[in-house]
């Protein structure tokens, strides 16, 4: 599996990471950011649980974050 992004960033001078790749679809990026912000800022779960789950998921999927 590749842990290096296969897609280029929308700005060729930028580093190829999730955020810079999302620039190819601005409306999609906006919707994703809005959901992500809402998820982290509010809700039933405490931040420790959210971050523990995120880290575990990132390790299993070989995500760089």
């Amino acid at each position: 599996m590749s842990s290096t992004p296969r897609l280029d960033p929308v700005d060729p001078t930028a580093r190829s990471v999730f955020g810079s790749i999302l620039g190819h679809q601005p409306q999609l990026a906006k919707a994703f950011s809005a959901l992500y912000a809402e998820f982290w800022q509010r809700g039933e779960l405490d931040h420790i649980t959210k971050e523990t789950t995120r880290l575990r998921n990132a390790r299993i999927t070989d995500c760089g974050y």
Partner: protein
Amino acid sequence: MANIEGRNSWVSGAWNASDIASAQTHLAPFIDELRGQASSTAPGRTASLIELQVAQLLGLERAESALSEKLKNWYSSPEFTDGEKAILEITEQFVLDVHSVTDEQFEKLRKYFSTPDILAMLFHVALCDGFGKLEKVA
């Protein structure tokens, strides 16, 4: 509780992914917006094909249609273009074992689609896979 298909749900009052998402009501409109954006920006009929294929791979109950029947043999079916077959191949690999998606499979996508199109389709695959699995287990 039992859902409408008779399967038990571990989430009180919920029986499908949409209802489960709605249980976190503050997230529901944001999830709907994201899923709508991914679906509407995926090119041609790829969004429908991806949704159907993910549902079939995960064993989710969906209404049968002529297209879903043809999709069961997508690899050899003349119904689908080479570009559609390229995204169907990656969708299958993504759902079954995401670690096994290859550079070769990705290059096939590049032959037929622009980078924005690929991004929209893969986002749609990820969302269908995630919410489909949620529907499957919750």
